[in-house]
């Protein structure tokens, strides 16, 4: 893979994705063989909004490769508070590190920032935009559990605002997956995502009820419906309740169904699902480390 910056999952071809997932697989199988591989390398972390877990996952990945991190810290304690532009911030800090990880509330921020720096920049989430490392770890989890061959996936919850969903749906088109989108009508996929899926010739269907498709699914990807998306609390509770699952919901599903969730969850997956063989969301979260290790290894020039 020859990618200087990792901005969007859309930039990655099927070959690129498989290369990352293969390397993540090698790492997961034998973590010690990658230890110390990037000793002396520094990863700069620029988190303009709090996301402790994504940050921890990148830190863990870099340290397991033998490298270290330099962290901008919180926005409150940085020059950004004094009104510095993002373009200036990244041009300064690229001098401190061999690669940068950026999380920023504005959509398109990672693409713009990458235009100002020479070191590789990885997008760790730009507002409601892209979050490619989440997509890659989702794909890794799907491949480990269900495989891409003849894959049927259901993606449920907030499809309008959920960026992990948009990015994943797009990436799945390169694997010719059958995709079912299950959501309340008010939270269906936005126009730009429909456009992309249509352009990619994706096999996509939309539903308002999970029952209609559950038996066909190999993977059910659940996302959170946030209360602030609804005008009032009672409407939220009424609607959100329809998109929650528990162990009894799953009795209608395939025996080898894989249930995923980007976490944190609130009550969209009942705790009684946790003990079932379908529950893979904690594995999914753990997969963030080998996948990010693979990606860092590649952008830092680990191809030998």
């Amino acid at each position, binding site marked *: 893979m020859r990618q200087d910056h990792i901005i969007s999952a859309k930039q990655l071809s099927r070959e690129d994705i498989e290369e990352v997932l293969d390397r993540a697989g090698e790492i997961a199988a034998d973590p010690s063989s990658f230890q110390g591989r990037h000793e002396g390398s520094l990863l700069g972390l620029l988190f303009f909004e709090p996301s402790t877990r994504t940050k921890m996952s990148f830190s863990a990945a870099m340290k397991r490769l033998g490298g270290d991190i330099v962290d901008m810290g919180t926005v409150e304690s940085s020059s950004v508070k004094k009104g510095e532009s993002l373009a200036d911030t990244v041009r300064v800090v690229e001098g401190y590190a061999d690669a940068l990880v950026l999380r*920023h509330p504005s*959509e*398109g921020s990672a*693409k*713009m920032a990458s235009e100002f720096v020479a070191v590789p920049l990885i997008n760790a989430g730009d507002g409601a935009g892209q979050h490619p490392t989440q997509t890659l770890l989702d794909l890794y989890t799907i491949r480990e559990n269900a495989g891409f061959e003849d894959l049927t996936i259901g993606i449920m919850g907030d499809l309008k605002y959920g960026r992990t969903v948009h990015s994943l749906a797009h990436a799945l088109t390169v694997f010719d997956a059958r995709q079912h989108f299950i959501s309340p009508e008010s939270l269906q996929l936005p126009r*730009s995502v429909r*456009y*992309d899926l249509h352009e990619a010739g994706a096999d996509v269907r939309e539903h308002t009820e999970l029952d209609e498709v559950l038996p066909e699914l190999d993977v059910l990807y659940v996302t959170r419906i946030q209360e602030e998306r609804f005008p009032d609390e009672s409407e939220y509770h009424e609607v959100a309740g329809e998109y929650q699952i528990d162990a009894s919901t799953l009795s209608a599903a395939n025996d080898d169904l894989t249930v995923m969730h980007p976490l944190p969850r609130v009550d969209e997956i009942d705790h009684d699902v946790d003990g079932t063989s379908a529950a893979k969301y904690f594995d999914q979260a753990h997969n963030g480390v080998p996948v990010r290790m693979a990606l860092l290894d590649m952008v830092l020039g680990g191809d030998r």
Partner: protein
Amino acid sequence: MSSDQELRVSKIQSGTVIDHISAGQALNVLAIIGIDGTGGEEVSVAMNMPSDRLGKKDIVKVEGRELSQNEMDVLSLIAPAATINIVRNYEVVGKHPVERPAVVTGVLECPNRHCITTKNEPVDSEFEVLDDGVRCAYCDTIIREEIAAHRKSDTFRHSGAARLFGQVLLKPFCPWVVRRGYGLRLDR
């Protein structure tokens, strides 16, 4: 052009004549090139004129103003058959049709207020041209309707004094003046 039409749309000394504008689009063309009358330019607009090629067409003539390539690019989106005539000293010195580009840079502003191109950053807006609209290269937002309403507001007026006059002096007396800064919102 017949003499009757010439009476209605006089010749200009130096500037731009935009001909073969799809009928009804003249005001959107003006919005795209950032002219709302407050900049002081002499502007003539002819609408629904007979045209061999288009049946009916609009014409816009602007004295003392030549268009940038970026403006012509955006123009092609709403007036795909338009011809741009550059006039110097009453002579047409350049005449070219607009071409629909793959990308339009600057001129338009992304309507997504969370988009990095709308923040205080050293970056131009950039839109990929689709079959039926444009799409922000940074945040993927698609504009399909009212492209002319998305003219960047910071380049909308040419004169700082005019802006000062409009915003500070007129505002207390004519509340509707404030709306001009956001461009013409005209349905096609």
